């Protein structure tokens, strides 16, 4: 089979000689967050929709998992809520950056590194803005 590697042969050196940098981190983060959204995110999204379609008891059961009695998030709610929204904004930012790379733009070393770092800044700021608005933005509403 073509997929069985002859272990007597050496691997290309690039497989073992490398170091972390923003560009590769952004690439891997895009993959990890995309896969997380596709699995954990999909299951929670569909569960939410099914609960909403099934009736008040099922919906209360879903909300109970993530909130305390007052309606505020519990620890599970914080971990999944913030984890998923951060993953979403991160995948969105690296995804938009990907569109530029796909056009052949932004491959200059310095610019590529800067935009890789910017995806993290954008994702963190958007996550803070989202939760800040949900928790504190509507107190008078």
């Amino acid at each position, binding site marked *: *089979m*073509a*997929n069985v590697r002859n272990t007597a042969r050496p691997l290309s050196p690039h497989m073992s000689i490398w170091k972390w940098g923003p560009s590769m981190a952004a690439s891997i983060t895009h*993959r990890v967050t*995309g*896969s997380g*959204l*596709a699995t954990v995110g*999909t*299951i929670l*999204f*569909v569960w939410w*929709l*099914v609960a*909403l*379609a099934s*009736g*008040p008891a099922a*919906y*209360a059961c879903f*909300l109970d998992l993530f909130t305390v009695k007052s*309606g505020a998030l519990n620890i599970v709610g914080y971990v999944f809520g913030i984890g998923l*929204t951060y993953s*979403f904004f991160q995948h*969105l930012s690296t*995804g*938009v950056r*990907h*569109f530029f790379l*796909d056009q052949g733009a932004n491959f200059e070393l310095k610019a590529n590194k800067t935009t890789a770092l910017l995806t993290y800044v954008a994702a963190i700021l958007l996550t803070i803005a*989202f939760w800040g*608005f*949900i928790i504190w933005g*509507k107190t008078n*509403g």
Partner: protein
Amino acid sequence: MGNGTSIGKVRGLGSAKEGAHHWWHQRLTGGANLILTLWFVLSIALLPAYDFETVRHWLAQTQVAVPLILLVIATFYHFRLGLQVVIEDYIHDEVHIVLMVLLNFFTLTTGTLAIFSILKIAFTAGAAL
């Protein structure tokens, strides 16, 4: 296929002729996701409350249910294409086929559940449960 070298086995076979199509659809759905998911996240943030009645009434409107169904189609197709690439990158033996079948089952089951639920809410929101 013969038992020659790796390159000998694939030489002349040509490409699978699906790569560019897959790549382009990943981008098309990526663009659709960008618009639809931003709309969804913003709308969720702007909801006055998250109790059963409020959320149901919001979701039952045509101008919410329809984009939400479009969102399900675009994102689920997008992640089905995306996870295929992830599987192909790491799994090279027969397990790859099993995982692809599971991925298709997962996507179709969750996608159908999602669209059914949205339609059910849209068609019954006014009715007693």
